[in-house]
């Protein structure tokens, strides 16, 4: 009986090449195969192909991929993704209002509810001095900017993570997700601001001419919101705890911010440092000064808020772009 050319002799367990077998040097399995062929009947070995090359354990340091911080290029890429931002914003808005029975009404319900609670609590219990402005109007002009800030930061910070599905598939600058979340929050704020004319009518007051300062205050407001959203969105991808801590922090911050009371309640020796640390305070104060009271902006305090906004926007964007290449890896 002649021997089988390719005998079915069971290969001993230790001689079977595991698909993962690989030397510490990273030499491909085949290179090592001769070690395992103690069995003389194993006539079939790999064909002598010269396709194996030895690879080092790690790349030489000069090959290391580093993306330079090229602001011009980043902004150009962002501009190219504007269509995506538009689509994302439309999608968020549609998802939010289409599948809810009360629809757009949800944009008012929150701030109006807070304004009513604040009226009872701050106005009747704590007696907030508001000059000649009715308290409901006073608190509502604080609640809208606060809502934009808090909503924008929370949804902006979670936006990259919430869009994980897209992250691994669509090549785009990742800041499109926080930015479109902030645009969505802005639309919410604009809808809730529609109550404001009604409040003016009911209370028999009119916005002051100084309301024309609004864009200046708003730019500071936007810079702070966007800056924090970008900063936290980047950090959140690696430290997921931020996601749980952030809403809580925002609730606490609401009471540390003059939303239901006035900035003048803060002791004057603390007010400068306070305005820098909590820049939403002077922002809200300046909305009120201009729209309700007809004064020019309070430049020193607004300036502190602007400094904070500029710092956090630049710092947040730089950090975001620095760690952005790794987002898809942890998604």
């Amino acid at each position: 009986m002649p021997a089988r050319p390719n005998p079915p002799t069971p290969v001993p367990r230790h001689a079977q090449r595991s698909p993962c077998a690989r030397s510490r040097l990273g030499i491909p399995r085949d290179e090592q195969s001769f070690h395992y062929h103690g069995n003389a009947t194993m006539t079939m070995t790999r064909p002598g192909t010269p396709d194996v090359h030895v690879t080092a354990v790690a790349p030489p340091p000069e090959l290391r991929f580093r993306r330079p911080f090229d602001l011009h290029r980043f902004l150009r890429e962002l501009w190219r993704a504007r269509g995506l931002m538009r689509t994302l914003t439309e999608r968020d808005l549609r998802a939010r209002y289409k599948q809810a029975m009360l629809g757009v009404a949800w944009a008012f319900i929150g701030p109006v509810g807070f304004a009513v609670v604040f009226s009872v609590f701050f106005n009747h219990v704590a007696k907030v001095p508001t000059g000649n402005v009715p308290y409901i109007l006073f608190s509502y002009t604080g609640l809208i900017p606060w809502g934009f800030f808090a909503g924008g930061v929370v949804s902006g910070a979670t936006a990259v993570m919430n869009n994980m599905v897209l992250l691994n598939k669509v090549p785009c600058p990742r800041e499109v997700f926080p930015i479109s979340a902030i645009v969505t929050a802005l639309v919410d704020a604009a809808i809730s601001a529609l109550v404001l004319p009604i409040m003016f009518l009911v209370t028999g007051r009119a916005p002051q001419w100084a309301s024309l300062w609004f864009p200046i205050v708003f730019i500071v407001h936007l810079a702070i919101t966007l800056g924090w959203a970008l900063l936290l969105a980047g950090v959140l991808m690696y430290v997921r705890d931020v996601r749980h801590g952030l809403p809580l922090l925002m609730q606490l911050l609401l009471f540390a911010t003059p939303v239901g009371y006035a900035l003048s309640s803060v002791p004057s020796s603390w007010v400068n440092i306070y305005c820098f640390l909590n820049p939403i305070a002077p922002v809200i104060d300046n909305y009120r000064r201009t729209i309700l009271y007809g004064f020019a902006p309070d430049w020193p305090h607004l300036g502190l808020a602007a400094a904070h906004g500029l710092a956090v926007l630049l710092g947040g964007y730089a950090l975001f772009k620095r760690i952005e290449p790794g987002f898809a890896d942890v998604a």
Partner: protein
Amino acid sequence: MLPDGSLHVDRVWKRFRDDRHRALLRDEIARLRARRKGDPSVGWRWALRDISFDVAPGESIALIGMNGSGKSTLLKVLVGVMFPYAGRVETAGRVGALIEVRAGIHPELTARENIFMYGTLLGLKRPAISARFDDIVSFAGVEEAVDRQVKFYSSGMSMRLGFAVAAFLEPDLLIVDEVLAVGDAEFQKRCLDRMRDVLAVGTTLVYVSHDLPTVQAMCQRAIWIDHGEQRRTGSTAEVLGAYRRSIEEHTDHEQVRLGPVRVLAVRPAGRDGQPLTAGGPMQVEIDIAADVTRTFDLVLGVTEATSTPIFLIQTSVEASSEIRTLCCNITQLPVGAGNYSLWLGAFGADHTVVLPWQSFGHLAVGGPELTPTPTGVVRLSPVYVPATWEK
């Protein structure tokens, strides 16, 4: 500046955390401690090691390799959703990608929104997308459902949409990952046709598939990636040959699976012991025995390394504990020159397996080469081979 549609991959390395979905403080501390001791690779594993290749505009290249070899990671790096750890990737022109079947397709959006979103990502203006809109919709066959959210689509529909969007928005570089595995036969044909069309207008194609015949049909060159390393790069025929041989070797080292029927020897040969040639005769002698006297169907197949045979020959055999020799005669071996495997299996009544289907050696076939397939034509071979048995 590279011309549009070219791809330049220069010594790309990529690593991942050992457990990407776990971020615990104690892991981080362990990692930092190891780094301070000078071992930066603790807690990381390499997904790609030193991958380099170039693709010229209009070329078609395939990436092949086992599951988990790093093909999809490489594609993600090419598309630009992932960044390499080291090395450089340069692409020129618009990149259309179909990764994980529904690449740019977002389930929350409608088909219409998806088409526009993906188009804007590819750098097309809205009017340009509108011009192609109807083509995309009709190719995907989703005319009635354009304004439905994609999450309510059947998986086939969303996949068709994904392919249509990627293939019709005229990318300079089209990256396709395993599309054909999921579609029905008709859609597979349309995909292949479309890929052939885009190749004809000079689009570069990077194609990933486990379906080797389609790889052979679509691509001029191939890269075999094995455990994150570039094992072989060259013409499709050459790389596929090497890849198949490696699979073959792998099967060789598998434990022999036993059954009540045992094959003791298999001797394939050409006429009068000559080497095998394409189209020439083949004679296979099989020494066979069984535990008790039993009757079963013996099936002999010739495969290209995988377990899927090119053709099968079957006969009814009665065997006992006494070893007997069977001889199968094939007048014309219907395969081209190359390396093949001979597989055997035996099956009793009621589909009981008396000898598991497994490889019993190699066939080196000389003689004329196989007729080359035109681009986009997939060879499938339900071959009938007449054979006579001497028992």
